[in-house]
């Protein structure tokens, strides 16, 4: 699971208000650096991404280079490289996504988060 996906996942347990973001507990992180660097795409994504969730998610996976805030004006090349790396090249292979309100853990196994709810959560 990459952080671009984490940035859209919410806790869908019935009644939960604080659904996003899910906290990441990382057990195994893999870095795959073959993703094409596309500045237009990255700029487009910058407007859509929840920045704090990305920074916290990246930190949980061991990457601390992202600034606390995204730049307001023209983004530098070096910033875009870090953004690219955090968004698309960090893979959570094993771990959990934790609901901040209930503490419920959604397991991540072989890179696939399991968001299926139990009967009493629906």
């Amino acid at each position, binding site marked *: 699971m990459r952080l671009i996906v984490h940035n859209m996942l*919410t806790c869908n347990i019935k009644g939960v208000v604080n659904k996003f973001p899910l906290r990441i507990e990382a057990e195994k992180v893999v870095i795959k650096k073959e993703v094409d660097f596309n500045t237009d795409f990255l700029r487009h994504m910058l407007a859509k991404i929840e920045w704090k969730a990305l920074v916290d998610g990246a930190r949980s996976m061991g990457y601390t280079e992202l600034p606390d805030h995204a730049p307001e004006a023209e983004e530098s090349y070096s910033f875009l490289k870090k953004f690219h790396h955090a968004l698309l090249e960090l893979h959570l292979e094993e771990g959990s996504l934790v609901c901040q309100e209930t503490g419920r853990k959604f397991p991540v196994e072989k890179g*696939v988060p*399991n968001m299926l709810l139990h009967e009493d959560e629906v």
Partner: protein
Amino acid sequence: MKLKQLEGLLGDLQQFSNPKVDLEQYPTGPHIASRMLFTAENSYGDITDKVVADFGCGCGTLSAAAALLDAACVIGFDIDPQSLETATLNAEELEVEIDFVQCDITKLELKGRVVDTVVMNPPFGTRKKGADMEFLSAAMKVASRAVYSLHKTSTREHIKRAALRDFNAKTAEVICELRYDLPKLYKFHKRKEVDIAVDLWRFEPKQK
């Protein structure tokens, strides 16, 4: 990439080893999958450099097609862990990057408008009534640009009405009619092979 080449690559993918009839697991053939995604990109620019979600991805045929057409990011969603395992192997075989999420699409809530395009071959609703509409509703909530979906031609008027009236569609267009050839997959199938008329739809959501 040329259409023929795309079709060839998709034809090599592994399909369901033990299809589950209640989930209406039928492979999306390379003929349909390649044409669906090729059209989405060549006629509408909805795939290359876009974030593409595949709802009910099964073994990942549509996801693979999107990745081969250079989507910026492809995410496959499915409820069945065995299919997701096969889909993961298929992605590795093709050397493409696809993220997978295990979930119930009807209960899924995705934040924001990160997803540009949803592509899907949803259940037709023959086992769980209304499944096709549930998938369409879910897709329309998530896509910012477009939803591509296959539905039985016999449901055409019903789908159009629901999309425009209930699912926030700005436009709902049948791009083409295809023949979906289903091989005898399940014991209750009497004929060796059957041809179903399906519509390839393109829906555009209203902008928020």
